[in-house]
């Protein structure tokens, strides 16, 4: 197995990935370093150069600093170049151009304070605020003081080029910001703290709130943010919402549920251990139907079909905290495989379809899971993952990315980066 590796020589706590080209190995990686004075480190795979920005954010929360919530690459200004977007829990959005000069102090970068007091002040009285947009701000109720948590939970970027609006979730409000000056255009009160926004398609986003509401928001082709409740699901502790066909996949800490748009449950599947990684939802065995590959911190990989039936299982025995990846290499022969990595530095490469393992008894821990009752198998048959190869790197794995449908990019918390060609023996 061909492996390449390099290091940024710093411990990191988060990373983001940008594949600059559709093919080829050129990419950029963003890291947030894991020390008191956090830095953004950007690694260019081609030049192997690193650029660093000191985030003078005093990120140690105990000292009254702010915490980075999310970093990502996004072309926020639609100039065909990604920018680095950082959100903090103190209401700041920092936008950094990829061509930044390391010597530039942070203050010179575009940093937009979504000032909570601006939002707050909107509640104090009826305000009409003149903006660039033609729309007016929705009238607010008057006089009530509300405590706001300034943490920006999510940024939702509209992917329609004409709309230069960023929608952010802050506390219980969905707020539209103008992309030019990040001024508040309008907002909506969803009633309780927003925990997550998922963009399902170009105009439907799913918003989950703490008091168990899941709302579908239809964004119209205007600057106005209309809340259209497509469905309301009373469910608590939803961590993520994804989609499968025309249905929603409600992901909680220990379960996955398929829900129709009319709030009808098609199936539910429980897992041991927390689900902290995204679910791979793809027809990775080319049978014409989407499959789901769910991993959890118990180490067990669950391959389900669209109807929630278990196709195969595999126990990697350590935390799976990264999304499984599907690789399809169309060379002379068609090759597909699925990769699952465990936090303790092991990479498992499977063929998409499972394999019969005769006379194997599942462990007692596996048998006691609820989801397993749907498994149809004879006493002597058991479907297990068809493991092609198990690779070990003596390092922990923070994140994994796919590159060029052939390379697996691994990032460790120590700042080491590994590039593995999954199809090479």
């Amino acid at each position, binding site marked *: 197995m061909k492996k390449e590796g390099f290091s940024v020589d710093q411990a990191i706590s988060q990373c983001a990935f940008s594949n600059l080209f559709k093919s080829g190995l050129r990419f950029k990686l963003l890291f947030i370093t894991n020390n008191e004075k956090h830095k953004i480190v950007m690694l260019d795979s081609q030049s192997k150069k690193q650029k660093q920005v000191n985030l003078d954010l005093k990120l140690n929360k105990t000292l009254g600093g702010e915490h980075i919530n999310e970093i990502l690459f996004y072309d926020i200004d639609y100039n065909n170049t990604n920018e680095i977007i950082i959100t903090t829990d103190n209401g700041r959005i920092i936008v950094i151009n990829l061509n930044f000069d390391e010597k530039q102090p942070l203050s010179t970068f575009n940093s937009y304070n979504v000032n909570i007091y601006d939002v707050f002040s909107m509640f104090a009285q009826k305000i009409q605020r003149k903006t660039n947009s033609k729309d007016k701000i929705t009238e607010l109720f008057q006089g009530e003081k509300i405590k706001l948590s300034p943490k920006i939970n999510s940024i939702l970027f509209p992917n329609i080029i004409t709309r230069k609006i960023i929608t952010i979730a802050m506390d219980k409000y969905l707020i539209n910001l103008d992309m030019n000056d990040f001024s508040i255009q309008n907002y909506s009160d969803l009633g309780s703290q927003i925990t997550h926004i998922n963009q399902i398609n170009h105009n439907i986003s799913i918003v989950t709130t703490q008091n168990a509401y899941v709302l579908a928001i239809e964004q119209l082709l205007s600057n106005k943010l209309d809340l259209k409740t497509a469905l309301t699901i009373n469910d608590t502790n939803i961590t993520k919402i994804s989609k499968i066909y025309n249905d929603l996949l409600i992901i909680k800490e220990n379960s996955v549920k398929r829900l129709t748009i009319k709030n009808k449950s098609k199936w539910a599947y429980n897992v041991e251990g927390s689900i902290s990684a995204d679910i791979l939802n793809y027809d990775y065995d080319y049978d014409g139907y989407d499959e789901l590959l769910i991993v959890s911190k118990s*180490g067990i990989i669950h391959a389900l079909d669209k109807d929630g039936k278990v196709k195969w299982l595999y126990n990697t025995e350590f935390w799976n*905290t990264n999304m499984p990846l599907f690789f399809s290499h169309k060379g002379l022969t068609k090759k597909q495989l699925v990769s699952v990595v465990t936090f303790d530095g092991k990479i498992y490469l499977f063929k998409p379809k499972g394999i019969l393992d005769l006379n194997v008894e599942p462990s007692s821990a596996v048998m006691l899971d609820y989801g397993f009752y749907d498994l149809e198998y004879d006493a002597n048959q058991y479907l297990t993952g068809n493991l092609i190869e198990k690779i070990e790197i003596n390092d922990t794995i923070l994140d994994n990315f796919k590159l060029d449908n052939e390379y697996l990019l691994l990032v460790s*918390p120590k700042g080491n980066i590994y590039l593995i060609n999954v199809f090479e023996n």
Partner: protein
Amino acid sequence: MKLITNKEEIVRLATNIDNFDQALEGGLPEHSVILMAGTSGTMKSSLCFNVAFNEIVNNNANAVYFTLEQNTYSLLNQMITMNFDLSKLNLVRISEISKIDENIKNIDSSKNFIVADVGVLRKEVESLQKVKPESDWIYVIKNIITKLKEKNLCDIVILDSLSALYVLSQFKENPRVKLFQFFEFLRDNEITSLLISEIPPNGKGLGEFGIEDYLADGVILLAKNREGLSVRREISISKMRQTCANMDVFILDFDGGKFRALTKISE
């Protein structure tokens, strides 16, 4: 586990507490899950270490000590002050997640005292929010046990403590099922397990969920009893399967590097 034909077939691990082994008909039954329950300062960790030390030195066993909150050096220093001769053990410390396999690979075949410092492992991931660092540590523990067992390096497991494990592994949902699964895992692997449980301040039950003693194979209770100005430690057997145990309360005495269970004189 298999069906025995007579009592003498049960292999027992001596606790190495004078007079207490007689109360246990020779010692703790092998491959049992034993709860060592007591309030703070009742020498639970020291007693578990004492059992493991004795087995390692006298019977070439291997023991793994999962310390979830106390630092490895703090634990070992404590044992040194109690006159345990650590030079008789092969000390191994597991303190990095990525090096678990490497550590295990380099372990000798016998007389190993392996400390899995979960506190240090937690520090490794505490800033990695993506990993959800304060959950699912039970799988790490199981992973280490499985790997050690594959190499026959795990005869005794000590978990310090169950209370910490609950915090680190979301036991609040279905605690009985999860605890049962964990105990069964230990039994299936034919390990003698000593699980340290802190008796909650409200005194209800021997653990946070009040079910630990029902699921365990044996329970040894440790307590502190105030008599006038002096405080004395007490030890007793609350439950022990496969054993016709003496359930009397003994005074636990530690003197000259040796534990003793002294018969209480009633009034």
